[in-house]
């Protein structure tokens, strides 16, 4: 039996897999990206910080070297005691770097981003002053690590309180990154794989030729969605297997909920792609439209870095973006053990968005 829908899906698969370059961009690039970012930023919980200690008459170099010994003991004990894996704990422990600088040098280093915070001794006692930008996550984390390490070091000498571990599954940068990359991949794949493909088919005048047959037009657009859903699932699986074996990233929450949010995300972006491509017959306009949609979301939706650094008024808006909803939901399943109760609503919203975009796109679609 020669079924049109199966043929349409098959043709898109053939087109996809007969382009080696597309396979590289779809499958290999996300893996390389996750590897590079994972290696570059580290798997040690994102707590890597560089701090300066300020050399002065009252706190000379020797004072700080002795102080660092105490901190180092504290960091090592903190990491080892609380970690589920001693390997990852030691990475975290070695993540804090100290430089001994003058105050002026420290200020310059802070401006250049070489250090995240500096520490100085308050004259007339043992108290320390931490100076850093409170919006800088690295600095805040560095402050926390050192402070707790000092407590732990003191405890090791018979004083001080217990210090909780920072090494918890899901707190590493790679844990943060991977669900975001997967969400971004769904968006890019839909907009380029469906939106751009449809624009290209219109430019080639193949769309009008197909529309001049008894083929159902909605079936044609749905065939793009189904193809892309399957391709995205394969891409998802390839990337997940890589980060599972290489970085030890695990899905801690509900897999059925993950599948649901994955399908809903695909629906949202497939619908958006149909709407985006509904009138465009110019490759430059199409390219610009896709970039105009993807770049702001890539930057705003917290794919590579948390969107919590944005001003407070912007965050509620950012959270309403489809990519933010998808990335946040996937992150909560991967890292926080979330299930349907947590991601059910965003999944419904994303699916509804997709249907509305698709419906409007179909209504205004230019087939000629």
């Amino acid at each position, binding site marked *: *039996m*020669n*079924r*049109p829908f*199966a*043929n*349409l899906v098959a*043709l898109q698969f*053939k*087109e996809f897999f*007969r*382009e080696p370059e597309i396979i590289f961009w779809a499958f290999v690039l996300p893996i390389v990206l996750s590897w590079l970012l994972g290696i570059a930023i580290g798997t040690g919980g994102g707590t890597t910080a560089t701090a300066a200690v300020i050399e002065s008459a009252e706190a000379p170099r020797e004072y700080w070297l002795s102080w660092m010994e105490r901190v180092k003991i504290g960091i090592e004990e903190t990491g080892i005691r609380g970690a589920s894996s001693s390997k990852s704990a030691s990475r975290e422990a070695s993540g804090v770097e100290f430089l001994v600088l003058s105050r002026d040098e420290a200020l310059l280093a802070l401006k250049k981003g070489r250090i995240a915070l500096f520490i100085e001794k308050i004259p007339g006692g043992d108290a320390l002053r931490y100076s850093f930008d409170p919006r800088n996550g690295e600095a805040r984390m560095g402050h926390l690590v050192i402070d707790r390490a000092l407590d732990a070091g003191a405890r090791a000498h018979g004083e001080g309180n217990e210090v909780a571990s920072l090494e918890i599954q899901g707190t590493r940068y790679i844990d943060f990154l991977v669900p975001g990359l997967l969400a971004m991949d769904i968006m890019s794949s839909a907009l380029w794989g469906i939106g751009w493909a449809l624009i290209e088919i219109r430019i*080639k*005048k*193949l769309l*009008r*030729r*197909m*529309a*001049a*047959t*008894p*083929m159902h037009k909605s079936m044609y657009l749905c065939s793009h969605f189904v193809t892309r859903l399957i391709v995205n699932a394969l891409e998802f699986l390839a990337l997940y297997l890589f980060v599972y074996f290489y970085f030890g990233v695990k899905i801690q929450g509900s897999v059925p909920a993950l599948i649901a949010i994955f399908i809903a995300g695909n629906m949202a972006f497939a619908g958006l792609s149909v709407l985006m491509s509904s009138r465009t017959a110019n490759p430059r306009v199409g390219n610009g439209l896709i970039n105009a949609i993807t770049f702001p979301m890539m930057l705003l939706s917290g794919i590579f870095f948390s969107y919590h650094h944005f001003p407070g008024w912007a965050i509620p808006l950012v959270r309403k973006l489809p990519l933010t909803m998808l990335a946040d939901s996937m992150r909560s399943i991967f890292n926080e053990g979330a299930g349907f109760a947590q991601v059910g609503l965003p999944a419904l919203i994303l699916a509804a968005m997709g249907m509305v975009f698709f419906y409007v796109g179909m209504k205004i679609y230019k087939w*000629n």
Partner: protein
Amino acid sequence: MISVRNISKSFKDVQAVRVVSLEFEKGRFVALLGPNGAGKTTLVEMIEGIQKPDAGTITILGKSWRHDERHLRRIIGLALQETNFIDKLTVEETLRLFASFFGLGRERAREILDLINLGEKRRSYVMNLSHGMRQRLSIGIALINDPEILILDEPTTGLDPVARREIWDILMNLKKRGASLILTTHYMEEAEYLCDDIVIMDKGRVLVRGTLDELLKADGERNGARGAQSLDELFISLTGRHLNE
């Protein structure tokens, strides 16, 4: 078979077709001749249901595009100008895809491969076909549903004489089988060789319509000894231009 009555079509400030009325009879090959911008493509695209006329009506075997689109799509075969098929599908896959839109199986695709003489290229990607072969594929797709009416928009433009002759052979075979064809063309000899009736258009209007003999006779009656002796002369006499201008 096809009745076109008082149709007009404008694009922004250009009036592409101006109050055209034509009747097309079953089993006849009709050529639409005209220079660039004459309105041929717009006219056939309205007959094909791709463009909607601003005014006037078109009925095909008594049916209209507004009410019977799916039925008409099943009985018309068409080849548009400048269609690019999917580069990395093979010839046979492309034919099977279009066959599936009509509920037809792979056997029909194989029949068409023989009909358009592309059997040896069935496993070749479309991107590796010559221009002439792609045009034959385009005609094959037009024929896939064994249409009652075939509409081809400049199927031989840009082809060398050999490739053009191959397409003529395909069309002449169809003619022997009683097919009905509307063909737009830039080539006088193509219209003369293939078609029973000739319609000459210019600036969105139909100037004359009839068999070649009828057209030459009528011109002779109008112009006496200065009457046209060939289709080429007739065209220049009517439009003041050569066909390729």
